[in-house]
C-alpha cells in the first residue's frame, strides 16, 4: 500500500521534478564541448597538423567523445537508479553496433584478400 502511494505521488510530479536534470547550464556546457570537438575534427581533416596515418584514429576518438557529450549532456544518460536501465540498454546497443560494423568490415576485408582480382578472374574464364 505504502509503495503504491509513493509511486502515485511520483507519477504526477516527476515532470516537474525533472527540471533539475534539464537545466540550461548543462546544455550550454554540452554545446561548448560539442562545438570544440566538431571544430577540432574538421580542422584536423582539412589542415595537416596531425600526422597522416594517425588521422583516422584521431577523428574516431573525437567522434566517440562527441557522441558521449551528446548522450550525457543532451540525452540525459546518467548513473542514477532510474537511468540504470537506460545505460544497460545502451550497452547492449553499442555491442550490437560494434558487432555489425566491425564484423562486416573484417569479414569483407578477409574475403577480398582471398578473392583473385578482376583481371585474374577474366583470365580464368578464357
Amino acid at each position: 500500500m505504502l509503495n503504491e502511494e509513493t509511486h502515485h505521488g511520483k507519477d504526477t510530479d516527476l515532470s516537474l521534478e525533472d527540471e533539475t536534470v534539464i537545466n540550461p547550464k548543462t546544455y550550454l556546457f554540452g554545446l561548448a564541448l560539442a562545438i570544440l570537438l566538431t571544430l577540432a575534427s574538421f580542422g584536423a581533416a582539412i589542415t595537416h597538423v596531425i600526422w597522416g596515418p594517425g588521422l583516422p584514429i584521431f577523428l574516431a576518438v573525437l567522434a566517440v567523445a562527441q557522441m558521449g557529450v551528446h548522450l550525457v549532456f543532451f540525452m540525459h544518460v546518467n548513473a542514477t537508479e532510474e537511468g540504470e536501465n537506460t545505460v544497460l540498454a545502451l550497452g547492449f546497443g553499442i555491442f550490437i553496433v560494434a558487432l555489425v560494423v566491425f564484423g562486416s568490415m573484417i569479414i569483407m576485408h578477409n574475403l577480398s584478400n582471398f578473392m583473385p582480382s578482376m583481371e585474374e578472374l577474366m583470365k580464368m574464364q578464357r
Partner: protein
Amino acid sequence: MNTAVLDAEGRPVPLSQRGPASTWSMISFGFWLFLLSDIVIFASLFATYAVLSTATAGGPSGHEIFDLKNVFIETCCLLASSFTCGLMLLSAERRQLKNFYLWALVTWVLGAAFIGLEVTEFSDLVARGYGPTHSAFLSAFFTLVGTHGCHVTSGLLWLLVMVAQVATLGLRTMVVRRLFCFSLFWHALDLVWIGVFTIVYLGAAHA
C-alpha cells in the same frame, strides 16, 4: 538527486519490489529502446558504406565529389538545432508558452536548412551524373545519408504535429512527455550525423 525509496521500517526497497514504474520512466525507456533499434539500422548502413567505400567502379571517389564547406554548415545547423530543441523542452517544462513557440520555430528552421542543403548537394551530384546508380560506393553513400535525411524530415513533420498539439491541448504533462520523446529523437539524429560527417565526409577528405 533521487532519494532512495524506504519502507515502513526505514530500509531501502529494492527496485524490483517497488511495483509498476512511473509513466514517465516507462515512456522514456520505451522510446529509448526504439532509438537504439533505429541506431542498429544505421549501424548496418554504416557497415555497408565502410565495405563499399572503395568500390567506385571507375567513377569518382568521395574525395573528388564532397564539398567540406557545405558539410560544415550542415553540421552547424544540426548542432544548433539540437541545442535550441533542448531550450524548447526547457521552456515547455517551465510552461513558458511564448518561449516554447520561439525555440520550436528556430529548431524547425535550422532543421529545414539542413535538409535544404542536403537536397541541394544530392541534386547537384545527380545532375553531374554521379547518382546512386553510378557505383556501389555512391549507392551506399546515398542510402546512408538519405536515410538520415529521411529521419530528419520525419522529425520536422513530428515537430509540426507537436506544435499543433501544444496549440490545441496546451502544455499539459502528456504533451510535455511527447516533447521529451521528440527531443530524444532529435538529439539521436545529431548523434548519427556525427558518425556520418566523421566516417563519410572527413574520412573521404583524408583518403
